């Protein structure tokens, strides 16, 4: 198990796929750990990418700072990992909290990237997200990691995914419960106490950016992704049908295919952001469909978009 060193901290990482190939770096969500990217490692390696995954500070096998974890340290750890990858093209993707860290990296070191894929992401804490985050933190404090998982599972995954697992949820939760510690998760959550919105800095991201948002994501709903689409000029927004916040877990094959296609298109010079809005297919390999012209993609019912 290799580790990077950031000051006195050790960051556990893993590299797969051919050395010298274009690389994908995948950044965990807040309660995740690097093994959850297994489907992506396999699929992206098979498509010729090198894949880098790691545990953020406070997660899994990386060091868990005891009192404070700063998001600056997470960006610094990510930078160390990307530096390990040599000079070839690097595509960076992250889910939720990991998407935020990826955005921060892209704002500060965007020139190092060939492409960026924020997923279920946000650049600011809307009142809903702030209050949900506070409630989740309280849940963690009062009920421990297991209760936090109990809250997150139904919020972030579909009935179709949950139904066959209803009588074995304890085993679904077990690995996450084992590798995550209450104080470390709490420190990760409390890294938002001095959070400043990234929105004013998003326009600094010039790299091709594909924003992925689940159709039914109510933790980080469409409006938060819209901020990214509007502020990042070379971007497009892709809506994943029938997906919730944690679609990277639920629809791994589909999402890995979208990541690979995005990178292949960028490398071939075919990709154009145009701040367009697309709807992904239900199946890997399916075509992206433009969001119907004239309709408002921020609404859940077919409402005509107001003309400028």
């Amino acid at each position, binding site marked *: 198990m290799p580790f990077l060193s950031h000051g006195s901290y050790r960051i556990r990482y893993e590299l797969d796929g051919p050395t010298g190939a274009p690389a994908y770096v995948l950044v965990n969500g807040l309660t995740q750990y690097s093994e959850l990217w297994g489907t992506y490692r396999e699929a992206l390696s098979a498509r010729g990418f090198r894949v880098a995954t790691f545990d953020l500070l406070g997660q899994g*096998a990386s060091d868990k700072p*005891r009192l404070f974890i700063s998001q600056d340290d997470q960006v610094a750890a990510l930078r160390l990992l990307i530096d390990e990858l040599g000079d070839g093209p690097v595509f960076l993707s992250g889910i939720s909290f990991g998407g935020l860290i990826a955005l921060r990296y892209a704002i500060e070191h965007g020139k190092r990237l060939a492409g960026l894929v924020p997923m279920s992401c946000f650049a600011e804490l809307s009142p809903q997200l702030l209050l949900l985050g506070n409630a989740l933190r309280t849940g963690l404090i009062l009920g*421990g990691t297991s209760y936090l998982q109990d809250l997150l599972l139904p919020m972030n995954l579909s009935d179709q995914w949950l139904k066959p697992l209803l009588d074995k949820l304890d*085993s679904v939760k077990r690995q996450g419960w084992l590798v995550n510690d209450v104080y470390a998760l709490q420190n990760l959550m409390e890294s938002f106490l001095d959070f400043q919105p990234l929105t004013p800095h998003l326009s600094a991201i010039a790299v091709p950016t594909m924003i992925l948002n689940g159709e039914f994501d109510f933790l980080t709903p469409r409006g938060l992704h819209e901020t990214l689409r509007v502020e990042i000029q070379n971007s497009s927004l892709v809506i994943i049908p029938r997906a919730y916040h944690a679609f990277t877990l639920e629809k791994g094959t589909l999402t890995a295919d979208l990541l690979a296609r995005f990178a292949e298109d960028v490398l071939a010079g075919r990709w154009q952001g145009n701040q367009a809005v697309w709807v992904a297919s239900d199946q890997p390999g399916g075509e992206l469909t433009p969001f119907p012209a004239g309709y408002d993609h921020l609404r859940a019912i077919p409402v005509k978009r107001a003309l400028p």
Partner: protein
Amino acid sequence: MSGFLGPVAPDGRIPPYQQTKVAAFLISAHGALARQFAFMLPARLDAAWQTELNAQFYRETEIVSLLLRATSWVVDPSLGYMFASWESAWLPAPVEGIADPRLAQMIHLAALAHAVHAGIRPAALLPIEANAQDPFVMALRRIEFESGRLLQAQILFLKSTDLAPHRDAVSAALAQRHAGVRKLWRELLESIGIGAPPA
């Protein structure tokens, strides 16, 4: 080396020699915290935050009482030496950079409690096959759950703005305590055939 207690008996119980060692360690650590909270607890409370001292004292005492009753004890001659080394490790240590002895003592106690509550996860040692109806298994789960709650007082104190001017001293004391407690815990687990997670 397994990462979990066991192999469990056919009825899902943890082997008594493992129960004995794990319970002895936890009784030593939580008992030391109970004694030190009792020492800090005034006969009459004169500040709101001291109500938490009272709560911490009784929760720690409850953990000791629970383990004494829920554990299947066996005679273990090696415990005498180990117990002595644990007890000496919990003694108050000076906090470098803090001149005020009362503040230093509070930081020491909070750091020790943080290290025990955050760093020791006894329920994470339980294998899937452990019998959920067994009192020792339930005791480990309760202790880990309760530790997560008790920890909040240490987090609030150690992160408080009052201690902001002493942040480096606090962080150093906490790191030292975590390393010490985890080392003892790791050694104990190795003595019963368990490979503990890295410190």
